[in-house]
């Protein structure tokens, strides 16, 4: 037994070679890129909350935040500092390790999915072959954070919120995945950069038109997957205080908040990459290739906020009926039609 192990390790030692100087530089650059991406995304999270309050305010004929800075521009920074210094309360009856782990699980899974998003040609941290599946995997894991937060807080409201989120995420992950199968079939790849490249550069060659059913299903499932209005039952404030995050305070509350907004951005990016042609636009912008990508993501984020300001919340049985009886059959029909189209064309 020992001889097997030792010979195995010995063999691998012989194959080992020292890292050249350029290699360590390469890793340093990757770490710097990750830090830069995190900084930009977290800044975006802060200002998406600002614009959400502003836009909803103006839609309801109010002004929104106005006091901190010019037109309230420093409000998100003030909010961040406030939540950082607030007392961190852990309920006595909570399951402490899980209570502490839940927000971290939520945030880490969301941040990890940023790694595979292509912001422009070559502007991607990890250009892996299974990019789309990786995003699905991470978004399904984020639900653990919510479920555990609901269970570990040991309170009725959080528990109900966690249960609802669990059922909702399981039900809507299926149409979300199926709606993108059409895109996979047309582009023949799971790599996000290749999906963008397969759509060509003009508006009419994007998958928005051939995959309009897929886009419809994707858009609704995206709202449900990110727990946004009209599907925000896990944190329905009129009935569950604030759902699974009721018992959290200070920085841990802020982590759930960040996870939700990063989730919105990731879903918006997936929509942009799979249906709107990614970084391609009407004309190329010199020096800043991700311009069109970012503009499209902002468009999606505005839609998220607009819908929140407009629609009332669904009832729970309506939510389930919509997911299982409408969206899944539609997504399956879309796959069938796409396959038929492909066979007829070829």
């Amino acid at each position, binding site marked *: 037994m020992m001889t097997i192990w030792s010979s195995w390790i010995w063999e*691998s030692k012989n194959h080992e070679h020292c890292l050249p100087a350029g290699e360590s530089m390469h890793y340093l650059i990757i770490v710097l890129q990750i830090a830069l991406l995190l900084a930009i995304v977290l800044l975006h999270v802060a200002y998406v909350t600002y614009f959400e309050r502003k836009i909803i305010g103006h839609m309801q004929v109010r002004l929104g935040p106005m006091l901190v800075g010019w037109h309230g521009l420093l409000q998100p920074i003030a909010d961040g500092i406030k939540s950082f210094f607030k007392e961190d309360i852990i309920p006595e009856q909570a399951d402490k390790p899980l209570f502490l782990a839940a927000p971290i699980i939520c945030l880490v899974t969301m941040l990890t999915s940023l790694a595979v998003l292509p912001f422009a040609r070559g502007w991607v941290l990890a250009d892996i072959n*299974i990019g789309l599946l990786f995003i699905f*995997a991470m978004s399904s894991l984020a639900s653990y954070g919510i479920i555990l937060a609901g269970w570990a807080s040991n309170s009725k409201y959080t528990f109900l919120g966690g249960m609802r989120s669990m059922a909702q995420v399981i039900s809507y*992950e299926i149409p979300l995945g199926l709606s993108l199968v059409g895109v996979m079939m047309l582009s023949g790849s799971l790599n996000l950069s290749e999906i963008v490249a397969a759509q060509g550069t003009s508006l009419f060659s994007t998958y928005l038109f051939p995959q309009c059913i897929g886009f419809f299903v994707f858009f609704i499932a995206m709202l449900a997957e990110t727990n946004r209005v009209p599907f925000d039952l896990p944190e329905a404030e009129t009935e569950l205080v604030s759902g699974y995050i009721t018992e959290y305070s200070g920085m841990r509350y802020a982590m759930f908040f960040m996870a939700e907004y990063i989730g919105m951005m990731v879903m918006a990016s997936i929509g942009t990459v799979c249906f709107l042609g990614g970084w391609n636009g009407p004309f190329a912008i010199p020096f800043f290739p991700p311009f069109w990508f970012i503009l499209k993501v902002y468009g999606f984020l505005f839609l998220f906020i607009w819908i929140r300001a407009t629609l009332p919340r669904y009832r729970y049985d309506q939510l389930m009926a919509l997911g299982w009886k409408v969206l899944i059959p539609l997504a399956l029909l879309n796959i069938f039609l796409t396959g038929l189209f492909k066979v007829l064309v070829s």
Partner: protein
Amino acid sequence: MVNQLLFLYCALVIIGTALLTVRFKNPVHSVLAVLVLFFHMAGLYLLLNAEFLAAIQIIVYAGAILVLYLFVLFLVNLRQEVKVERFVASHRLSALVSICLGICLLAILPFFKLGAKGNYPVGRIEQLTHTKAMGLEIYSTFLLPFEIAGLILLIAVIGGLVLARNDKEVAENELSDSPSAGTCEVQE
């Protein structure tokens, strides 16, 4: 070298979390240990260049099946620690049996032989991408086993449907039979 170390890490964590799953008293903690285990299984697949399997491992097992387990746990009992009777009464006997089993397993290990090389060496899989290679194989060489597996799953789905329907009808019949139908709760 790095690959070997990663394998060693994954293998040790898999063994550790598998033990923890059995040892934890709280079933929710056990499920989470299984979650970590699935993660490291996915890591092993990645080390084998099987990225598609790794992703599916996480999406299906960690993202769907384990969540359903949690769901069932939550519905069955809330935060009750289960007390199970000892399977073997004597401590020494159980220790002896497990040590014997362990020795048997270790004794078998040296006889392990690598299988014959298939049509897909690492280079070809990297060129084709793992997803495509698997799809091609499943829908050409292994079409029949694949269809049989699909049929078995279909039978299970229909079986589940039939069972759920029957229960519902029985419950409804009981409701309409009993005179105090208005106050009676639905029986599962």
